[in-house]
């Protein structure tokens, strides 16, 4: 083991991953499972059965106090101070220029209590940002990342499986959550995920993570659950066109160009000013120079982040993510492309440095669960 490995954060399930034969990699300062056996098989299992992901590396913050809702609303592209208790909303934390500091899921636990899940790579930056914007006596912010674990169960059979031990969870609507008692501890279970499949994400005390995983694998129907690593998580979210910070989102990229209008509350007169609102309204009104587009690529080679997209020899865009889609068995990519050229069916070339691939623009997402 090298010196750097010893300084990586380990999730509460680290030993469990190692025992399951995972290939562990450094991801945003965490030792995480990239895959257990095959990224493609893990991906397909999530699309057909149930995959279990350890996503404990994601940052988890608790906000408490009379100003918690106002603080989060000031930081989020989506209005969140009027979120009903028991609901979670997806939004983007923007800078004043309307670029993304991160994308987040914000849960409302009580009138004056919220919870946020942020990307591992942005945890410290966002913790500082939230504090700089307004932690005070009327709102405290606590980083609970290291006290908790987060596990996702994703797949078309996830809810059926969960119904074996809970009637409360399968009754949840999408983007709703509930507290479940597991071994006497409170577990926050939300009907959310990052795969494009139905399923849940659970936030639980760190000490419970391994026993919860073992409990799951001892349940009836457990043979349909297989662990899935970060490799499958990335190809699953790409098929479903869910953005990833550092790829489709970034501080220099106009956030509105990502093409998820539901993530922006820009026309609500009741909403107080928020960070980036002026820039985002301008992006919406005048359009952004480039927009996020799906590319259907000929052949079996993948386009990768940073590759140039051309049209008639001229550079018109850049690839943000790409892979050979395990579900569709063809090469797919997302790219930021000059807004004038984003129409479905428009032909492009992708320059890989090794070859030139032919591509056509297609609507996102590539895959939608039935």
């Amino acid at each position, binding site marked *: 083991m090298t010196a750097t490995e010893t300084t990586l954060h380990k999730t509460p399930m680290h030993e469990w991953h190692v025992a399951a034969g995972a*290939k562990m990699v450094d991801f945003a300062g965490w030792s995480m499972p*990239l*895959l257990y056996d*095959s*990224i*493609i098989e893990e991906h397909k299992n999530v699309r057909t059965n149930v995959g279990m992901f350890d996503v404990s590396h994601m940052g988890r913050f608790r906000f408490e106090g009379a100003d918690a809702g106002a603080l989060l609303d000031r930081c989020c592209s989506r209005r969140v101070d009027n979120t009903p208790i028991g609901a979670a909303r997806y939004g983007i934390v923007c800078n004043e220029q309307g670029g993304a500091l991160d994308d987040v899921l914000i849960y409302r636990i009580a009138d004056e209590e919220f919870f946020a899940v942020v990307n591992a790579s942005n945890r410290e930056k966002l913790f500082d940002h939230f504090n700089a914007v307004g932690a005070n006596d009327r709102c405290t912010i606590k980083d609970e990342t290291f006290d908790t674990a987060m596990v996702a169960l994703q797949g078309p059979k996830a809810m059926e499986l969960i119904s074996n031990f809970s009637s409360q969870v399968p009754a949840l609507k999408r983007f709703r959550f509930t507290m479940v008692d597991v071994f006497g501890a409170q577990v926050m279970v939300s009907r959310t995920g990052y795969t494009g499949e139905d399923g849940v994400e659970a936030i639980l005390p760190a000490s419970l993570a391994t026993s919860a995983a073992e409990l799951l694998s001892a349940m009836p129907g457990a043979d349909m659950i297989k662990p899935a690593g970060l*490799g499958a998580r990335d*190809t699953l979210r790409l098929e479903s066109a869910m953005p990833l910070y550092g790829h489709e989102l970034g501080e220099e990229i106009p956030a509105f160009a990502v093409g998820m209008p539901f993530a922006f509350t820009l026309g609500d007169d009741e909403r107080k000013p928020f960070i980036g609102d002026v820039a985002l309204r301008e992006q919406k009104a005048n359009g952004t120079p480039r927009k996020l587009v799906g590319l259907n690529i000929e052949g*079996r*080679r*993948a386009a*990768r982040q940073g590759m140039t997209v051309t049209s008639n020899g001229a550079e018109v865009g850049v690839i943000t993510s790409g*892979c*050979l889609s*395990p579900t569709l068995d063809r090469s797919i990519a997302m790219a930021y492309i000059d807004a004038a050229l984003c129409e479905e069916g428009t032909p492009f070339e992708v320059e*890989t440095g*090794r070859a030139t691939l032919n591509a056509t623009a297609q609507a996102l997402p590539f895959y939608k669960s039935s």
Partner: protein
Amino acid sequence: MTTPDDRRYTESHEWIKLDGELLTLGLTQVAVDELTDITYVEMKTAGETVGPGDSIGEVESVKAASDVYSPLGGKIFEVNAQLADDPSLLNTDPYGEGWLIKIKVADSSGFDDLLDASAYQSLQG
């Protein structure tokens, strides 16, 4: 993981077997573990001539793309056509069914300079 001792290895994680003047080349277990699931293989075609140390093609995986090199030069005799239909053979059987290419070598004298199994394995730490 076991490294077969019936062949030689390169530091860039190719294995090479020599049978007379016919060389067979593939990727080691270390290489395929690093690449993860292989999704695409494109080798140069039979009849082409390659020099020692030249790229003979490339493999792509879910995570990365990588060139493959032959330490010995010669004329390409055969490429593994099965890999076009099923590149995952490289993952499941890198030292057997997942071989990449056969080359008729011009000069095999460099073969003995390549790493043997134990030298290759000791490089992996």
